[in-house]
């Protein structure tokens, strides 16, 4: 961006949000050069912090007038480069729009600003016996606006559904600065379900400034089981058998031996370090009948040669188990300086095959890969360990990741279950969809974002081609 334009931009943004709401120094901008996908980086020109819908409208108008690309950002915990400022421009950080505006338990909804951290809402609802069901592992940091942008999942989405199943309405600042309100607190609003298609659009339709979300009654009781297996095969066969038997647990998560080492070192839960894999299997609901469900699951695990099936005896033991699971990615630092995680999905019966393939691919590329994932959904998260200072390793990581995702597609699956396409998986879109499929999606995008100035370079190989910057943040490696 020419220096004169940049200084005009900064000056005008400061007028909108005040000097404390604009970051411009190179050291400050460094924080915003990537999200949880650290392989590609590019600094924005400016980061701006609105505190109201009106601020967002004004910011968007300034960007349009100065022909500057912009994109929304929450906590930056996304894992596919969704908030990577490809080609620079303005990052609109929504973390200061963090108010829970309204809670209505009788009608089971809440109205929140996009910067509200996922867990804050559930904590806020706890005294009333409610929670916000989507529970990504990053829920202590990620924002609800970000959850909606990427249509986040989490361990308990197996039973409760992903973010879109819990978003009733949105207020969106369109890329031209117009404010639109879709859906609402009441179900079945007439007309197209615009809310449903804006969720998961990864910031390419505009900036969400308010969300009407469904809140869910807490289950009366839980049974949380830890199945210990000698081999990954036995664990994955158990998953396949549980689903095949028609049981939908609240959560069904797998951790393999390598990740167990790291998690145990960090959280001291008492995981068996010699086990090939463990499954966290949780059923919830009414107290009545819950033991029967837990018993059926235990029997299936034992039939698949589980060494033991432990039951979390107390609520604190259950919480520690979940803390260990949800913070598993944080413990990966004990294994390697860098990691890259994938988010493929396969039909659940293909899990045993898929895990064997991951192992084969890792061995072939001399890479260590550990696995901790939403097994019940068939949503794998192989974590490829490496050192980003070693260019050859980086290259092998990218090749291995590519091969893993190719295999998911061969199994009839998808390349992303909950992290999104971002920039990371753009090149897979033509493998998942035909040119005609993609054309329908780009036509839809043009209804919201005709000039492509909002979140350019995302989701589609040709996205925002007209303003694709010369200084791309994309790496040739992809």
């Amino acid at each position, binding site marked *: 961006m020419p220096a004169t334009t940049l200084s005009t931009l900064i000056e005008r943004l400061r007028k909108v949000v005040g000097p404390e709401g604009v970051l411009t120094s190179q050291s400050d901008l460094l924080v915003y050069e990537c999200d949880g996908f650290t392989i590609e980086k590019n600094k924005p020109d400016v980061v701006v912090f609105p505190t109201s819908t009106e601020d967002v409208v004004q910011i968007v108008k300034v960007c349009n007038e100065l022909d500057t690309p912009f994109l929304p950002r929450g906590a930056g915990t996304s894992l596919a480069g969704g908030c990577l400022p490809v080609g620079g421009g303005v990052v609109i950080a929504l973390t200061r729009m963090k108010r829970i505006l309204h809670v209505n338990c*009788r009608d089971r909804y809440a109205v929140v600003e996009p910067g509200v951290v996922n867990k804050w809402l559930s904590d806020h609802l706890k005294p009333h016996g409610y929670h916000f069901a989507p529970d990504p592992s990053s829920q202590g940091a990620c924002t609800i606006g970000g959850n909606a942008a990427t249509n986040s999942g989490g361990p308990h989405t197996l039973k409760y559904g992903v973010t879109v199943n819990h978003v009733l309405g949105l207020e969106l600042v369109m890329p031209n600065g117009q404010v*639109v309100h879709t859906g609402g607190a*009441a179900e079945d609003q007439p007309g*197209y379900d615009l809310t449903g298609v804006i*969720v998961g659009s990864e910031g390419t339709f505009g900036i969400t400034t308010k969300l009407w979300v469904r809140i869910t009654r807490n289950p009366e009781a839980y049974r949380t089981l830890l199945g210990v297996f000698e081999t990954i095969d036995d664990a994955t066969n158990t998953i396949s058998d549980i689903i095949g038997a028609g049981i939908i647990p609240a959560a069904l998560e797998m951790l393999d031996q390598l990740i167990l080492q790291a998690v145990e070192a960090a959280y001291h839960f008492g995981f068996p370090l010699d086990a090939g894999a463990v499954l966290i299997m949780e059923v919830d609901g009414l107290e009545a009948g819950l033991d029967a469900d837990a018993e059926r699951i235990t029997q299936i695990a034992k039939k698949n040669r589980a060494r033991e099936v432990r039951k979390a005896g107390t609520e604190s033991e259950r919480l520690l188990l979940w803390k260990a699971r949800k913070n598993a990615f944080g413990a990966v630092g004990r294994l390697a300086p860098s990691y890259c995680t994938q988010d493929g999905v396969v039909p659940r019966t293909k899990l045993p095959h898929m895990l064997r393939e991951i192992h084969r691919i890792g061995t072939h590329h001399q890479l260590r890969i550990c696995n901790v994932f939403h097994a019940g959904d068939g949503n794998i998260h192989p974590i490829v360990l490496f050192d980003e200072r070693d260019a050859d390793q980086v290259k092998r990581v990218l090749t291995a990741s590519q091969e893993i995702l190719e295999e998911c597609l061969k199994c009839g699956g*998808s390349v992303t*279950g909950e992290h999104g396409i971002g920039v990371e998986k753009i090149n897979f879109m033509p493998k998942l969809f035909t040119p005609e*499929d993609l054309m329908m*999606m780009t036509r*839809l995008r043009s209804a919201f974002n005709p000039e492509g100035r909002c979140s350019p370079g995302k989701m589609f190989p040709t996205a925002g081609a007209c303003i694709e910057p010369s200084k791309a943040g994309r790496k040739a490696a992809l």
Partner: protein
Amino acid sequence: MENPTDTLPSLIPATIIQPESVAELGDIVRQAVGRKDAVFPFGGRTMIDFGLPPTRSGIGIDLRSLNQVIEYPARDMTITVQAGITLAELQKILTKENQRLPIDVPLADLATLGGVVATNTSGPRRYGFGTLRDYVLGINVVNDQGHEVKAGGRVVKNVAGYDMCKLYIGSLGTLGIITQVTLKLKPRPEEHALAILDCTPQSLGPVLDQLHVSRTRPVCIDVLNQAAVRAINQQNPGLLPETAPWIVIVGFEENSQAVIWQIQQLVKERYQTGRGLDVRFGSAADPPWQAIIDFPHRPKANLSFKANMVSSATADFCLRVGTLDPEIKIQAHAGNGIVIGHFVDKLTINEAREMLKQIQAWATADQGNVVVLHCPAEWKRELPVWGAPRADAWLMRVVREKLDPHHIFNPGRMG
């Protein structure tokens, strides 16, 4: 069962083609575009008079020959089927694997999956199981260029690309012709039961409030007024208790232990708020359950509406609407704030307009709206069939303009 909409041919053109393959369907669409004809897809025609009449002429496309199962990996609990399959046939296939799609569809023998998706049909169980947007994993449509295009996929979790399935659900065939759908399935419950609670106008609200905080977790909370009960009982004598002005039907589905416990618990809670509770267990629950699923299609009415609102407003809304006409038949999915009403055959259009205006005001005050489900075709241009204009209606039009720029799919249907 009689199809109540057989007598309403006005929304389907005289020329009808029934393609035998998706390729043939693609050709039909391309040819229609070439002739500047519109196309009007349909299935079992159970909801064919929903929405506004066409604004252009064209050809009807009967999709019932596209009714094949493409893939049913039962152990993955998903199925991919063509859109022309009837819901009854689909459920029959799923039952063999002890699975189901937990969406209640009236006239399931006639209604096709494509039609159900296009109209976003739901019923009493939506309180426990949600609606189609929670079950549709992937959709194929034939687009305005005659290409079959897909959105979503075949696995239970997938965020690749825009989730255009959400747009197609409830789009009434205005964005493309649905040819194939992939669904997420649920296991059939081990046990089920219904509890029927008698209510007075005074107790209806408190009973619904109590159910909201009950320790039980119902999968259905439906309300019927006495006129609705009588209409149901006319076809099934003695099926539902007729003496109370209102009844609340509470459904449970889970393993047997949980269902038994919930019925016992509900009885306990009930005796704190009133008397009158009738329990139907297992197969005895099936006939009344089926009756409330089919009810939206049963009454002979010249004006039927569906109102939505926040759920706490349901009881008051039902009571108010009940005062408009002593013979109005009312059913509510009370846990979801959905109220369906049928006025009997004696309204004039002016009366209908006045009624709708009043009902609209009540629903809007509780964050909802009112759409006309059914009325004489000649009233449609005069009545607010799609309710009060929504603030995002302009954006919906832009979306449609992008996906159907030549206005070939059901033009005019959604206003």
